């Protein structure tokens, strides 16, 4: 299952709720303001780093760049994808849930 999260974890509880419901083998894609959860050294970074290794976490590159977030400031386990990669993630997972 693919989860997309588009909210900053500092403003809304959406990301938290997504993490509470994601299962091993799932993928989480951070888009729009959701990409702020991908950054090292924040109040949520520890939780992201400590997540089950079977959970893949991605962030949308164009949304990172727009917000001035460099690849070097990302938590290590985060993979960056472009819109094409977003499409691939949707195709690879049977169902997707948008955490709006």
């Amino acid at each position: 299952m693919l989860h997309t999260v588009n909210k900053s974890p500092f403003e809304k509880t959406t990301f938290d709720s997504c993490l509470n419901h994601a299962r091993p083998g799932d993928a989480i894609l951070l888009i729009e303001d959701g990409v702020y959860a991908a950054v090292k050294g924040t109040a949520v970074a520890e939780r992201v780093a400590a997540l089950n290794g079977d959970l893949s976490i991605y962030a949308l590159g164009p949304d990172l760049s727009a917000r001035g977030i460099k690849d070097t400031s990302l938590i290590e386990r985060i993979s960056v994808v472009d819109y094409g990669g977003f499409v691939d993630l949707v195709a690879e997972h049977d169902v997707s849930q948008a955490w709006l």
Partner: protein
Amino acid sequence: MKFGILVNEGPYTHQASDSAYHFTKAALEKGHEIYRVFFYNDGVNNGSRLTVPPQDERNIQNNWTELAEKHDLDLVVCVAAAQRRGILDENEAKRHSKNADNIAPGFRISGLGQLIETGIECDRVVAFGD
């Protein structure tokens, strides 16, 4: 693969419509089929042809209209949500005695059944909203 796209927020306030547009373009470039783009909630506002954004800004409605023309996309605006928010085509305007319509080229107004049908027919449904 057959994709359905759901857009639940209007243009400009939220990034949702932009994200949906870039996703749709990327899916088409990868050879996927876009079965339908369904606009719901405030998303129906993407279908107004009366928006006049500054010239140095993207024109979200035009982007959708042009993409629809190029790829023969089915852009559907939910009728119930559209009526609440003042998005009308010629028929709807006549039916409700309004003196104008504002649906943009490439968009059509139809019922919520079209969203359910999208879920039934598509391999994947991807939603964008707030």
